[in-house]
């Protein structure tokens, strides 16, 4: 299957080239909207304005009638990872997405074709403290290392509520534990987090004491490294962002109190479907909120979810983004943003911010991406219509100034791919036919599904 997928890769144009996108409606998100051009050099936006001089030898892309917006950023996704949940333990901070990146996942290309250029890939929500996250760029065709958003702040997943409790309920366990796994209640969820952070604090002290001895030139034995507690010490020290899956207002407040007690900030509350009920408290803590546009009622803790969530939190001063948590939703986050205009009356720029500059800030990468400004990475999505329209489609996507998605090229290449696929299937069928003729064919072989390559 992956062999077939490889054929779908767009071949990126050479970096270091100078490119001008002109005649476009440019939605900068942070610096207004204008008719004009964007000059790209060495993967960066050099200039964006109504009049931009085209340097000699520059590649010129005419985007007449088209709309350019910053590449979309998804603050919550699970694509391009070979596994998501380590649910056998309640604290799985020793594992991380970085170790299971799958650069062949076709969902990368599909997200790209939806205008997404950056995504935060998270561990699942099976445990109160989950694994480490990985921020990636959708550089389809690059290897695992090549997908990593170099320099992005490290993150870790926390999770609260129903998913976490499930392993404590009979008959619902996921993960490898044969019996029930603590916690089974929201009380237990708080306890697990407090216990882990208390342990981390003790571990941090061991290292500080050790360092102090060294500083005093005393003899000292280093503490044994603890891979589970190390990321949690980073959390306590503000060096690793906590992205916390949560739903209900009470559990949101619980986590904010825990963080306050341990002296760190929750970077983002993820899903946070009842965030609108405690938006003041979220804003006061300084946590960001990354929510769904309008999902509700799929489980008990989502029954008070409302599509006005994003708008209320914005109005109450929370830094809000809209995320997908789904390879499908990820393909149209631009129109998900439009829902925050419908429900709660955000304006166009506020709506577009939910999927560009706001998630960039939440991930600590706003100096690099999230808006069209000189000096930022040339991560751009070109639409044929205004991206807040349901009729818009993505024509081109640039990452670091390289063209990673081009609809025209995708369409051109389809007949060739079809032919290659057919040739592979025919070859496989011929092979199967040959094998069937052999006398040693087993009974099972005879029953095998026709067209087995699929």
């Amino acid at each position, binding site marked *: 299957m992956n062999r*077939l997928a490889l054929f779908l890769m767009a071949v990126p144009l050479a970096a270091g080239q100078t490119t001008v996108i002109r005649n476009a409606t440019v939605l900068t998100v942070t610096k207004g909207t204008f008719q004009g051009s964007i000059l790209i050099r060495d993967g960066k936006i050099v200039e964006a304005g109504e009049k931009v001089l085209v340097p000699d030898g520059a590649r010129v892309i005419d985007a007449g009638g088209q709309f350019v917006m910053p590449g979309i950023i998804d603050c919550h996704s699970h694509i391009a990872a070979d596994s998501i949940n380590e649910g056998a333990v309640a604290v799985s901070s020793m594992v991380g997405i970085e170790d299971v990146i799958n650069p062949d996942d076709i969902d990368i290309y599909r997200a790209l074709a939806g205008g997404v250029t950056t995504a935060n890939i998270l561990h699942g929500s099976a445990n109160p403290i989950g694994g480490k996250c990985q921020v990636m760029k959708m550089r389809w065709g690059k290897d695992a290392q090549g997908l990593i958003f170099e320099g992005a702040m490290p993150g870790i997943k926390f999770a609260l509520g129903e998913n976490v409790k499930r392993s404590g309920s009979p008959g619902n366990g996921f993960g490898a534990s044969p019996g029930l796994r603590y916690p089974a209640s929201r009380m237990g969820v708080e306890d697990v987090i407090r216990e882990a952070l208390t342990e981390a604090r003790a571990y941090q002290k061991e290292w500080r004491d050790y360092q102090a001895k060294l500083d005093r030139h005393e003899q000292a034995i280093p503490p044994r490294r603890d891979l589970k507690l190390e990321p949690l010490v980073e959390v306590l020290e503000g060096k690793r962002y906590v992205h916390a899956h949560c739903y209900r207002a009470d559990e949101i407040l619980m986590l904010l109190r825990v963080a306050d007690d341990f002296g760190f900030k929750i970077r983002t509350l993820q899903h946070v479907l009842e965030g609108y009920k405690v*938006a003041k408290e979220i804003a006061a803590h300084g946590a960001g909120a990354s929510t769904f546009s*309008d999902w509700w009622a*799929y489980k008990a803790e989502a029954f008070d979810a409302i599509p006005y969530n994003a708008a209320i939190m914005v109005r109450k001063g929370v830094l809000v983004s809209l995320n997908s948590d789904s390879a499908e939703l990820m393909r149209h986050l631009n129109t998900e943003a439009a829902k925050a205009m419908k429900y709660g009356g955000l304006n166009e720029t506020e709506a577009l911010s939910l999927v560009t500059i706001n998630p960039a800030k939440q991930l600590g990468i706003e100096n690099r991406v999230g808006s069209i400004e000189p000096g930022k990475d040339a991560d751009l999505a070109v639409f044929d219509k205004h991206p807040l329209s349901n009729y818009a489609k993505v024509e081109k996507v640039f990452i670091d100034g390289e063209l990673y998605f081009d609809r025209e090229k995708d369409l051109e290449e389809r007949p060739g791919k079809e032919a290659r696929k057919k040739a592979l299937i025919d070859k496989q069928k011929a092979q199967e036919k040959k094998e069937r003729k052999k006398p040693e064919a087993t009974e099972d072989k005879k029953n095998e599904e026709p067209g087995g390559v699929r």
Partner: protein
Amino acid sequence: MKTCLAMLLTLATLRAAGPETILLRGATVHPVSGPDIADGSVLVRDGKIAEVGARVALPKGARVIELKGLHIYPGMIDSATEIGLSEIGAVREMNDISDIGLFKPQLRAATAVNPASEHIPVTRANGITSVITSPGGGIIAGQSVLMHLNGWTMEDMAVRAPAAMRLEFPQIRTPNRFGASEAPGRASAYAEAKKRYEQQLQELNDFMESARRYRQAKAAAGPDFEADLKLEAMIPVLDGKVPMLIRAEKEKTIKEAIAFADKQKVHMILERGTEAWKVAAALKTHNIPVVLPPTLRLPDEEDDPYDKPFSIPGELSKAGVKFAFASFGPGDEDNPRNLPYEAAAAVGFGLPQAEALKAVTLYAAQIWGVGDELGSIEKGKWADLIVTDGDPLETRTQIKQMFIKGAPVDLDNKHYRLYEKYLAR
């Protein structure tokens, strides 16, 4: 002020039984069945559309609603939902979608729909005025209902009960489809699944045969004939009065379903038909309409073009196949309130906007056999209308007013109430 308005609207809903005559005036009317009417009017009387046009005389005693700058469209119809049967997807106790057994034609969705479900006001707030709610599970899952999203009881709501008999066509279901081809046991698992499928197909044909003989026996028998509720429920299907809504996804299953419907002489509506585009010619020849799966979904195969789900509606439209969009929610896939966006998603990829709009209004009504009652703004149809500030397929458009069976409908809902409450906190 807002509360006052809500109360007034609620009172209006209560009065709905009373036949109020209303003239909607000054809007751009989009009948869907014909050209748009600028500065048009719609006269609503006895729950029905009495007149529509550029000039409609104001009858004595009629209430006038001025709608300058706004648009009137027919209310939208979602052709596959679980509304009323499923309140919270993950809570077992709040789900009545499926029951035990393979052949359950006697089960009626209309029986278990909760008219007080929170999903009803939430869904209609975005312009959806009627939906199909279907039972699921087994082979013959039971009877679907077509209902208005307004009413105290099913009697108020039902447009057609049953609207269809729902059949989940047997198919070969192998566990772990993408498992390594060399994995031990794969071939035998396939053989087992194939055997199960063949057996189910046989049982289905036997069941149809039993129903046919039952109908014959009943026709020949006297008044003391003892009814069999399962087989009795099949009679309207065999008589061609109730269509069979047949769920089939892959090409092979769709072809088998078509052959089945042909042989059994039942009126077929194809549900989902993710590979309907491969069978478009046969669907057209047999005049079989399709309830499409959500457009906003991932391609079915890893190496399908990335936009395959978006381009299929346009392909089917070109091939002359009639179809309607559906959400398959709220438990399963999209939120039913997002129905218009399932239609819109196909427009950038080859489906004309007017066809997309028809596939959530008029075509849906025609597919469900109520083309002369719902789905467009035409004289004599139910006055299921929405008033908008723009194209209802666009997210940014707001639904301003709604009428179901000619009665003004309160657009307030749980979500709006929570919004107001917590915005004011």
